């Protein structure tokens, strides 16, 4: 990409296009390009080859500032609340986490707290059956908080290592639904001290700038401790997580790379940044 080029306005425009096409957004891309210009003026960059390496290093360093390991409870169960807007991959991501923990020989319990969408409970039940983990479910239309309560009780009684709570997709613009999410979190917190230990916002890697607003609003309803970036096996780069890190300091904990239960990877900043420029 950069062979035989010099560090000029043309190159910077090309780089800005790479950043923008990765969904980093105008503000973040501009800032990165400005940092690049300063570094050049300070003599830190003499050759074009150094530019990409410098960019990558800056991004990698920034993304590594936050911890991407899962928050674990000191005493089981570790409670993980899963949230996000409609269709991002929450239910499937829960299956992947359950599978991961299962592989680690941990005991997992799932809570089917999406009592609203057609066949949502059935969908999670198919996964729990396939993976071989238990599930707490009520009737469709039941109170999601009640499901969460029962699941928390069961998690304690059955002494599970992980309780993962599925919630209905919801747009952050719907105040009543965001209030419902807060209520689910409060139910878990009341029943299990320190719960939820991890609240993962599942983002669709194809989502654009709206992901920042999603992160902001969900973070106000329930403190978001991490992102699960799903559908990164597509052509979208998911660069929006850089903007989210800059503005909200929320780390990515996992990435989704497909539709099967083992299509999950813990977030690796180096791999992610290298893929941005691939």
């Amino acid at each position, binding site marked *: 990409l950069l062979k035989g080029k010099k560090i000029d306005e043309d190159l910077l425009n090309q780089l800005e296009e790479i950043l923008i096409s990765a*969904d980093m957004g105008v503000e973040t891309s501009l800032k990165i390009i400005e940092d690049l210009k300063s570094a050049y003026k300070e003599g830190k960059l003499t050759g074009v080859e150094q530019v990409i390496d410098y960019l990558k290093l800056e991004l990698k360093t920034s993304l590594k500032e936050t911890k991407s390991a899962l928050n674990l409870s000191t005493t089981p169960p570790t409670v993980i609340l899963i949230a996000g807007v409609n*269709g*991002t991959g929450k239910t499937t991501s829960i299956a992947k986490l359950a599978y991961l923990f299962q592989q680690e020989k941990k005991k997992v319990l799932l809570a089917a707290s999406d009592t609203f969408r057609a066949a949502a409970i059935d969908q999670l*039940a*198919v996964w729990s059956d396939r993976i071989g983990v238990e599930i707490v479910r009520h009737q469709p239309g039941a109170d999601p908080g009640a499901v969460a309560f029962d699941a928390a009780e069961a998690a304690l009684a059955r002494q599970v290592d992980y309780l993962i709570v599925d919630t209905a997709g919801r*747009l952050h613009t719907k105040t009543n639904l965001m209030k419902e999410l807060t209520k689910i979190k409060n139910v878990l917190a009341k029943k299990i001290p320190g719960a939820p230990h991890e609240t993962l916002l599942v983002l669709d890697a194809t989502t654009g*700038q709206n992901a920042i607003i999603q992160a902001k609003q969900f973070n106000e309803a329930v403190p978001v401790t991490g992102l699960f970036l799903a*559908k990164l096996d*597509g052509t*979208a780069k998911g660069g929006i997580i850089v903007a989210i890190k800059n503005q909200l300091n929320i780390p990515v904990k996992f990435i989704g790379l497909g539709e099967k239960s083992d299509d999950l990877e813990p977030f690796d900043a180096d791999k992610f940044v290298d893929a941005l420029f691939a």
Partner: protein
Amino acid sequence: GISENLQNIFRKFSGRGHLTEKNIRDGMREVRMALLQADVNFKVVKSFIDRVTEKSVGQDVIKSITPAQQIIKIVQDEMITLMGQSDTGIDFSSSGPTIIMLIGLQGSGKTTTCAKLAKYLTKKSHHPLLVAADIQRPAAVEQLKILGKQLDLPVYSEALGPPPRICAQSLKFAAEKNCDVIILDTAGRLHIDQELMNELKEINQKVKPHHIWLVADAMTGQDAVKSAAEFDTQLPLNGVILTKLDGDSRGGAALSIKAVTGKPIKFAGIGEKVTDFEEFHPDRMASRILG
């Protein structure tokens, strides 16, 4: 929003004669930012800005409005031209049932949209059949069956598939049930999964749908162009449905998808209920994107 930003840029404008090249360049930089922030694809933005710049050069400043308003008018007009005329009509088959196939990326809202489209069609005195051709996603068939039951509409499904066979078999079932429209719900898939793209081609060959519509999420970012272009290249796409417009995403994907496929956005999903479905308004979308 863009109006205030442009007003600020032109605050010191003298208010006479032509819009100078500098006026236009300053204004267009602001418009470019607004469109990128709205998730319009950067290549679409580039060619769009080139066109509106060309249209703006040398234009006489209309005495009664500010240069900011003039630039906005030029941009809005171009966006409305790009978004195209409203095209919400459905061509129904003159012999046999009209077959509509919904395709798209995972989670874009296809299954829900099938139900919405069915409801919309019954209001127009049609008798749709829903076909559960997604046998891959856990409980996808069940999802469509539940929606069908809520609407008191028939749903065709088979336990085993494969999807092209299910779609072919649904024609017989539609005849039995006197259905005049068949809506095929397909599994979400990546445009780069050639095996699954071939499955869509096979359905198309076997069943020859009259309409193939891409169901796309309004919050999609820069990638909208890549996926839409690929679906459009591999299949005879003739329409688009944009979902989740009840959110606060600016929806630049609408412009990107229209620009790269040329196909009309016919309907909008504006919520999770089966009635949250309306005909798409290109002009309303243009002002939403501009912000």
